[in-house]
């Protein structure tokens, strides 16, 4: 157990550094195992500093910076041991437009490197446009969800129609 954990920690850390660098266009980040004598009991510390900024406590990072850092970790775990499915529910909500583009680029990257299937819930037009296919959910009858398969134009229309 211990060998395996240490080996996968090293791999996740490598991926995390590379993904953080790609998402932020620079900066430094790394994972550390906290000082438990036994790696099987240790916690996971995250050090992250966007380009040009001093390393500070994670809580000082902005909403968008925290979302990008979290995505880098999730995908680092994926690249180490790919899960069959990934579901992201409006993770692009705190991101500005240029980070939405980076997020979508990364999604495309991960999806080409693994067999993981992605379900991505979003309100962002740019993210919708980068999907392989789109499902729209409507409530033609109030309170009853109905699923329809849509193209981009229809998706934008569905997005804008209020539920009421």
């Amino acid at each position, binding site marked *: 157990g211990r060998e395996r954990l240490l080996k996968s920690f090293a791999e996740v850390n490598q991926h995390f550094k590379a993904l953080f660098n790609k998402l932020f266009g620079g900066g430094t980040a790394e994972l550390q195992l906290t000082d438990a004598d036994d790696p099987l009991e240790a916690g996971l510390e995250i050090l992250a500093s966007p380009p040009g900024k001093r390393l500070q406590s*994670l809580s000082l990072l902005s909403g968008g910076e*925290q979302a990008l850092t979290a995505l880098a*970790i999730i995908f680092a775990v994926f690249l180490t041991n790919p899960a069959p*499915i990934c579901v992201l529910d409006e993770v692009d909500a705190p991101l500005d437009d240029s980070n939405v583009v980076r997020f979508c680029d990364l999604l495309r990257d991960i999806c080409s490197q693994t*067999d993981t299937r992605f379900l991505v819930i979003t309100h962002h037009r740019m993210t919708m446009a980068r*999907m392989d296919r789109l499902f729209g*959910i409507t*409530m033609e009858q109030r309170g009853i969800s109905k699923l329809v398969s849509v193209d981009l134009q229809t998706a934008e229309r569905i997005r804008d129609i209020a*539920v009421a």
Partner: protein
Amino acid sequence: MIFRSLKMAGFKSFAEAAEIDIESGLTGIVGPNGCGKSNIVEGLRWVMGESSARQMRGGEMDDVIFAGTEQRPARNLAEITLELDNRKRSAPAEFNNSDDIEITRKIERGKGSSYYVNAKPARARDIQLLFADVASGARSSGIVSQGRIGAIVGAKPTDRRALLEEAA
């Protein structure tokens, strides 16, 4: 193991049967506020064995059963089926003898949940083990609920241990 489709009926706002095909690559899900997008994420966790009603944003597990609208009466049954492709034979031994695996969870109001694997009764435990083996499951870090993307960053170091275990 490959996730192929999710079929829901009577679960939350999905009063009528709905089926989502899960294909390779990126599948987007869009729609106005309150239309049922996040309910799908909860449906996926639920069929994979989620035991906490709070994770379903409810007070008790019966809250996942369609509660009715002004035009429609409530239901007493909710059911979700997850179809998996097991041609690569990566499932645990007792489920590994077929190409397709169908996991079904049903709940009846006031009577609790029951699980089935390829139509044969199973325990919640079996389902949870099935997914743990493939680095997935109801609490997988790869399933990020709405508003929770920052949670990994805000968590305590020991709470993040599960991430490492998934990677191993």
